[in-house]
């Protein structure tokens, strides 16, 4: 047996056309190219080195508009609970309720990094990752840039934002410009502070390495989505003595940043940074809402582990939560 061919027709007896294939052992095939409310018949042709064999036609089936994807019901329920928790904490924060947010060392150091650059009269280089604006990490990186740019404007520090995507360049320019206006320093802003280098991953890394070595920045921010270039950038910036604050939600790159940078925002801290730096109660409320999500996940994991342990030791036949969810 080398595989299966899937045949389809609107007539039970004839006109079957090849619409796809399946590997040996496959037990299902999904036809995503159908016309709604048209009846189709299917046949499966088994292929082997000795010839082919076809199944009888299936019963007629038809597709129709599915108004809700029930395979995502659990995800929907979870998302709804977490969203409600976030809304609840945002509204309670609006009423002035005090919310406790743990200290994030990397974000506490932002002021120091900008201050250091000002004192040394050297640049702050801000890198918002290597991905485009469709990445949530890039969006988080750009929001943090807004806070850093405002600080840089207030401290009169030199800020430079080399980017690897044109859309990121446009967004960063708007963000930095608005930050300078809000800091009361529109005169200090110019478009050349944010500039495009290249879309190419290692070309971008090479250009930034050159920039670090030539300009010897006092502070380097690496905030966004990074891949293999993360350590190349972090180690080069480290070699010129820059204070580095990194942040990413790429688990594979986090160890590199932790090893090479002074401060690292780990995963969720990257997304929390903007709220944390702004101290806006509404944004801080959204962080508190995440804790409800964490509690749910923790509970499910603990119950799941307990069920599996009881099943294994006592053979109770409790449900496996991994299949339930």
């Amino acid at each position, binding site marked *: 047996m080398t595989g299966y061919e899937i045949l389809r027709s609107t007539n039970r007896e004839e006109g079957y056309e090849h619409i796809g294939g399946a590997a040996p052992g496959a037990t299902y095939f999904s036809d995503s190219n159908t016309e709604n409310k048209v009846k189709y018949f299917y046949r499966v042709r088994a292929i082997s080195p000795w010839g082919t064999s076809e199944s009888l036609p299936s019963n007629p089936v038809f597709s129709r508009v599915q*108004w809700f994807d029930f395979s995502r019901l659990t995800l929907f329920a979870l998302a709804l609970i977490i969203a409600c928790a976030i809304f609840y904490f945002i509204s309670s924060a609006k009423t002035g309720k005090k919310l406790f947010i743990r200290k994030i060392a990397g974000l506490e150091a932002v002021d120091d990094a900008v201050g250091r650059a000002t004192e040394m009269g050297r640049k702050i280089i801000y890198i918002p990752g290597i991905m485009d604006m469709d990445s*949530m990490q890039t969006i988080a990186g750009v929001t943090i840039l807004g*806070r850093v740019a405002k600080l840089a404007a207030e401290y009169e520090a030199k800020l430079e934002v080399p980017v690897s995507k044109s859309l990121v360049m446009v967004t960063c320019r708007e963000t930095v410009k608005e930050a*300078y206006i809000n800091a009361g320093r529109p005169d200090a802003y110019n478009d050349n502070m944010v500039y495009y280098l290249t879309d190419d991953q290692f070309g971008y890394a090479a250009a930034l390495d050159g920039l670090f070595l030539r300009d010897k920045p006092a502070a380097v921010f690496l905030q966004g989505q990074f891949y293999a270039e993360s350590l190349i950038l972090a180690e080069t910036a480290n070699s010129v003595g820059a204070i580095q604050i990194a942040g990413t939600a790429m688990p594979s790159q986090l160890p590199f940043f932790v090893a090479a940078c002074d401060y690292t925002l780990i995963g*969720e801290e990257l997304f929390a940074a903007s709220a944390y730096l702004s101290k806006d109660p509404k944004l801080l409320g959204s962080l508190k809402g995440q804790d409800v999500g964490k509690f749910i996940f923790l509970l499910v994991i603990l119950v799941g582990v307990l069920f599996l342990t009881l099943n294994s030791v006592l053979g109770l036949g409790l449900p496996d939560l991994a299949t339930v969810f």
Partner: protein
Amino acid sequence: MRREVPLVLTAMVGLTMIIAHFIPPFNILKDLFEDWFFIIAAFAIYLGVLNLIRVNADKIYRKSRDWPFGIVVILGFLVITIPGLFFSGGRSFSDPGTSFYFLYIHVYYPLSATMFALLAFFVASASYRAFRARNVEATMLLAAAFILMLGRVPIGDWITAWLPEGYRMGNAADWIMDFPQTAGQRAIMIGIALGVVSSALRVILGLERAMGGD
């Protein structure tokens, strides 16, 4: 108005993307918005290219510091763009026989590989700093790294061959990867997922104004 319009557009597109994830008929709008993004991104490339040329031409014109690098950038841009656009018959850089392919294989590819290769040296220097046993956590990190590195090469099992099967260096390395490492990584992933949900809601609700500089 200048602030409100982008916020309303963001909220509309963001909500549509969420709804489409659960209600399939909305996928038509989701696909449409994704197409729009790619079209806008494709046009935006020209903004980037123009900016690159303008910044470097300006640097050369003003004889700013390191201006010769500006010449290298513009020459590099022209050397790869002109053969790609005009002397490769509309074929891709991956089609052998074109000048575009020649430049890709003999210039771009080795340069990229060189940058990537630097990673090996940077891993060594970063590891040296990270694995110094300065406190309890760093010492645990050092011990885990030692076991992992030895467990991933044949000599690890060879020097622990006297131990029973299942307790050798390779098994210890597998255990570290399968249990403590996976548990830690999953905890980070859960935090990231929740962070994304929270950030997305802030952006959609218009609470996140830092992108507008607020």
